[in-house]
């Protein structure tokens, strides 16, 4: 349990640091907006010159136009010009406080000061973001290390492997997706999550936790799905009660979960309630995965890459899309016989995707 707590802590810390960074960003944007809103004096005069009335909403656009005004049209005191050169200030960006918008020395100095303050602030925001990422990565690595070491130390794994013919499933998905817009497509992982959940209703021995030297079967089937992160590491959010949800419900949750996982916005409940884990390699890379069980869970289903392979079908050789499936089981909680039945049922379920 200590592992899960550690993970929660890391996630929380990450969230807090992110919030700090985001807050700073917001303040900065506010400040910028305020700048635009509070410096309309020269602009108003411009508006009058053009004889046009502009709403305040158009002001940012106005500001851009103003920046394009050639230098010779802006009145600048000679001293201001010299100071601007010394301070490396682009004088066309400075707003004058004098009559008719004339730029004086104090305007240039104020602008330079503001610029330095803005830059420092921006740097601080950047630093806060960097530190939060590094910290989160480090603590994530540590919680993975702790969980996996504990697993290897304490769980006597057994592995069972089977090859599932995915022709029926993939054809069914294709058929379904023809009727769906791009953003509502059913993806193979959705089918796999649902098939695993349904299989567990028949083999509940694999769904739950090994704690206090005994197996505790969980009633709710919460399927964790390992999602690797670009910056390294992985998270395993769970689809709660996946056996009771429709494919459509799982699809919506799954897509949302992956997005939030990548952005680091998962809820701690999602990260700590899985009763079994799926790891799926997707379409690239290795064909099989022999997973390490996430304690105190007692099983992990590893799906490889779907590959076309020659298979014996009805006494003939056919080319079939095959999915290598490896079940890792905790031998303290179950035996190979239970695991084998689970794989059989899982295979059967994926042959009838319309019934999922």
């Amino acid at each position, binding site marked *: 349990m200590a592992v899960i707590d550690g993970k929660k802590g890391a996630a929380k810390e990450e969230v807090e640091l992110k919030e700090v960074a985001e807050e700073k960003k917001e303040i900065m944007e506010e400040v910028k907006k305020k700048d635009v809103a509070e410096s309309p004096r020269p602009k108003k005069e411009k508006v009058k010159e053009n004889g046009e009335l502009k709403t305040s909403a158009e002001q940012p656009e106005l500001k851009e136009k103003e920046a394009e005004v050639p230098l010779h049209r802006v009145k600048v005191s000679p001293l201001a010009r010299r100071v601007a050169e010394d301070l490396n200030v682009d004088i066309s960006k400075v707003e004058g406080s004098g009559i008719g918008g004339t730029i004086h020395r104090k305007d240039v100095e104020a602008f330079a000061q503001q610029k330095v303050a803005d830059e420092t602030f921006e740097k601080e925001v950047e630093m806060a973001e960097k530190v939060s990422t590094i910290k989160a990565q480090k603590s994530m690595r540590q919680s993975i290390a702790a969980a996996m070491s504990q697993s290897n130390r304490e769980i006597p794994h057994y592995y069972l492997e089977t090859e599932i013919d995915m022709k029926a499933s993939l054809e069914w998905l*294709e058929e379904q997706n023809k009727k769906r817009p*791009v953003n509502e*497509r059913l*993806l193979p992982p959705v089918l796999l999550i649902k098939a695993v959940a349904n299989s567990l209703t028949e083999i509940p021995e694999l769904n739950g936790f090994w704690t206090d030297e005994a197996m505790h079967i969980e009633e709710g089937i919460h399927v964790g799905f390992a999602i*690797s992160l*670009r910056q390294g590491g992985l998270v395993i959010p769970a689809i709660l009660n996946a056996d009771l949800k429709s494919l459509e419900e799982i699809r919506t949750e799954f897509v949302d979960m*992956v997005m939030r996982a990548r952005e680091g916005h998962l809820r701690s409940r999602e990260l700590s309630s899985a009763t079994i884990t799926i790891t799926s390699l*997707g379409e*690239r890379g290795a064909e099989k995965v022999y997973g390490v069980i996430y304690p105190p869970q007692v099983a992990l289903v590893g799906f490889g890459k779907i590959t076309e392979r020659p298979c014996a079908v009805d006494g003939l050789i056919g080319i079939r899309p095959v999915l290598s499936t490896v079940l890792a089981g905790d031998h303290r909680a179950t035996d190979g016989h239970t695991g084998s039945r689970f794989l059989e049922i899982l295979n059967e379920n994926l042959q009838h995707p319309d019934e999922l």
Partner: protein
Amino acid sequence: MNTTDIDTIIKKHLHRVAPEADLETLEPNEDLGRALDIDSMDFYNMMVAISEELKVDIPEEEYGKLRSLNRINQFLTESINK
């Protein structure tokens, strides 16, 4: 909309799923998955975003072929000008 505009849009969405990747050094015919370590979910999310922005339907059976900048660009150009 010409191919350069479309390239810009593709790269914008690539940047969203792979923010740290250097898109300048990306070869137009390189496999995006391998070059940028994009998985199928990233790829799917990118396709959804592109199809929404350009109002182009990208059939699922095309996904397998749309593996490089050039291929995606070609497909989108043809779809838009249809």
